[in-house]
């Protein structure tokens, strides 16, 4: 298969809008890379530059070590699955899948074999004679994937392929695409705005915002060690809680002062926070790292009042308010809350992340 390498790739549109700024991404052979970010973050533009559908304004793109900036899409040996499937409406499913092979003048028997094989993988044999109009959304999605598979391309590109499906189907197709990746052992680049898709599918995730790559890493690295507040807030559902606090020192301990409460910081962040004494930091804590503990010792918990209770069965999401910040906590389903309850949460400081209030970068632990 193939490696894909972007070196300082930028895209500036005619109007002067810079969609992608100096993106550096290295994608290993057989890797499943997800580009994720809010809409307008440049992820699709990046993908389209890899595909050759957009010109690269500056920087270099290498596929398999070969610079392909000026190579037209048809010569790049890349297959792409589009958000709206982009099936050819006047062709049967079979012809849709065979089109790319026919153009490459492959013998008929080989085309038949490839389509059969792909149809087998995707279980769409009985659809081969139908037209796209006669298919459901999920079936169209399969055909679109099938059209990519038959080509045996170097790289697969997916542009938000699941966003037009209903929630249930999306979960199912997500798993199927993942298993497809395992089965085909192909290099895949997948664009989505859904961080759950990114987390569940990617070997490596590229988080983008405003055309700039924020962080590249495997799902758990992004989750546990976000480099900045954006990544921390974007990855994870429900999202990470942020409290803006000021750092103080008293009694030989580092404290954070939220305004409604004070909390002593012990453990791994005690040292790194020292330069921030007298300054503001953002205290980030994930909902599952807020431990409900009514017996917590003074100066180790966050006091708040319950506002909204969302029992989900396996867990309960509790929205609480400190008076200045609203927080979400994940609690065990057997603890019963009612609105207005005064609660105490002890944050797991080994999992918490602090961010510089000005730069929004995570404070280094070193």
């Amino acid at each position, binding site marked *: 298969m193939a490696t894909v390498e972007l070196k300082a790739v930028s895209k500036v549109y005619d109007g002067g809008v810079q969609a992608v700024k100096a993106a550096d991404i290295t994608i290993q052979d057989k890797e499943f890379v997800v580009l994720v970010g809010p809409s307008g973050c440049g992820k699709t533009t990046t993908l389209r530059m890899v595909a*050759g559908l957009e010109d690269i304004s500056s920087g270099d793109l290498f596929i398999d070590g070969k610079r392909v900036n000026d190579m037209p899409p048809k010569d790049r040996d890349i297959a792409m699955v*589009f958000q709206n499937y982009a099936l050819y409406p006047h062709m049967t499913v079979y012809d849709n899948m065979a089109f790319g092979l026919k153009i490459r003048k492959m013998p008929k028997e080989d085309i038949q074999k490839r389509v059969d094989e792909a149809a087998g993988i995707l279980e769409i044999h009985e659809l081969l004679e139908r037209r796209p109009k006669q298919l459901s959304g999920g079936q169209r999605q399969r055909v679109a994937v099938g059209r990519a598979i038959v080509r045996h391309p170097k790289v697969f590109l997916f542009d938000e392929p699941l966003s037009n499906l209903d929630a249930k189907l999306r979960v199912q197709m997500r798993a199927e695409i993942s298993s497809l990746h395992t089965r085909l052992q192909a290099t895949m680049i997948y664009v989505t705005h859904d961080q759950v898709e990114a987390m569940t599918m990617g070997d490596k995730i590229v988080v983008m915002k405003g055309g700039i790559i924020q962080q590249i890493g495997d799902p758990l690295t992004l989750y546990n060690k976000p480099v900045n507040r954006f990544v921390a807030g974007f990855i994870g559902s429900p999202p990470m809680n942020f409290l803006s606090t000021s750092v103080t020192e008293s009694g030989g301990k580092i404290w954070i002062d939220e305004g409604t409460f004070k909390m002593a910081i012990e453990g791994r962040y005690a040292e790194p926070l020292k330069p921030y004494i007298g300054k503001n930091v953002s205290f980030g804590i994930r909902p599952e790292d807020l431990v409900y503990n009514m017996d917590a010792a003074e100066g180790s918990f966050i006091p708040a009042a319950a506002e909204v209770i969302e029992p989900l069965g396996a867990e309960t999401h509790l929205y609480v308010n400190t008076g200045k910040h609203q927080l979400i906590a994940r609690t065990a389903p057997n603890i019963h809350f009612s609105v207005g309850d005064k609660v105490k949460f002890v944050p797991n400081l080994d999992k918490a992340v602090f961010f510089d209030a000005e730069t929004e970068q995570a404070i280094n632990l070193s």
Partner: protein
Amino acid sequence: MTIQRFISYFVFILWTVLTVTPLVWMSYSSFKTNAELTQDIFSMPSELVFKTDHDYMVSSFPSPQTLIDGKQRITLESSKIRGFRHFILVDRLPTEFQSLPVGQTVGLDQLPFGLRNEILWKTLFYNYTSAWTRGNLGPKFLNSLFYVVVSTTLIIMFSMMASFGFSKMQFPRWSKFLANLIAVGYLLSIPAIIIPLFIMLSSLGLTDTHLGITLVYVAFGLPLGVLLGQGYMRGIPDSIIESAHMDGAGHWRSFLSIVMPMTVPVIITVSIINALGIWNEFLLVLVMASSESTKSLPVGVFSFASQTSIELGWQLAALVIAVVPTMVVYFRFNKRITQGVVAGAVKG
């Protein structure tokens, strides 16, 4: 509600009557002789259809066929319809008729059944055969067909190619301007610019040529094609074409294999509108074509009318000949025409 319904039905019926009546009149009148038509323009056909038992006179008019094959024929000339002659092989006549002198009158019922039948059929279609042979309609029919088929094909080819360029290729600043420029051509009609057109073509040496006439038709057909075509193609998602690019198709291939088949509704609409227009077009060919070899059917119809005489019967027969193909097209593609025009209008 019922009154509205009544009014709309009334309007529809009135409209239908207004459109159909001339067609009906033309059809039955084409079976009337010139004399009948001049006497009463609305009467039913009679002499060619019912009162066919009039006498024939042996005439000295030589058979053109005899001049070729040398076989002996007798010429029978109708006593009622001037110039309506039958040239009958002598062998086919009973012996008593074989040596009739010139000027002798023969009743139709005296002739053997087979011969009589043949003459009756010929009488019935007298206008049609006369129009076809005297007006030399055969070659004109072929010319009309040529203009329609070649021009329409070229119009579709070029207008769809232009539409593809304007709607799907990346030159946003110019595409709109150029497309509108072409669309402005829709406001021009052939009669409006026939004189400059003639001067232009004659300076190119293209008057009275198939090429010259076809080029003008193509030029006048393009605006509508581009207008409807690019409107429709804008509705085709870019991703389908990008997908074809990813599949390995270049611009040309994605145009032919993907965009063209998807544009079929518009292609049919544009084809029918242009084909019918060109089939019926009269002025351009009248002005440009001076020799028989380039004239089209409508001009052929016109040729029966001159300042000294008008052969109304022949002219009507020629008209029917000219109208039948359009009727066939209409009835065959009835649904597509109405659908196509609406589709073009709404999506375009």
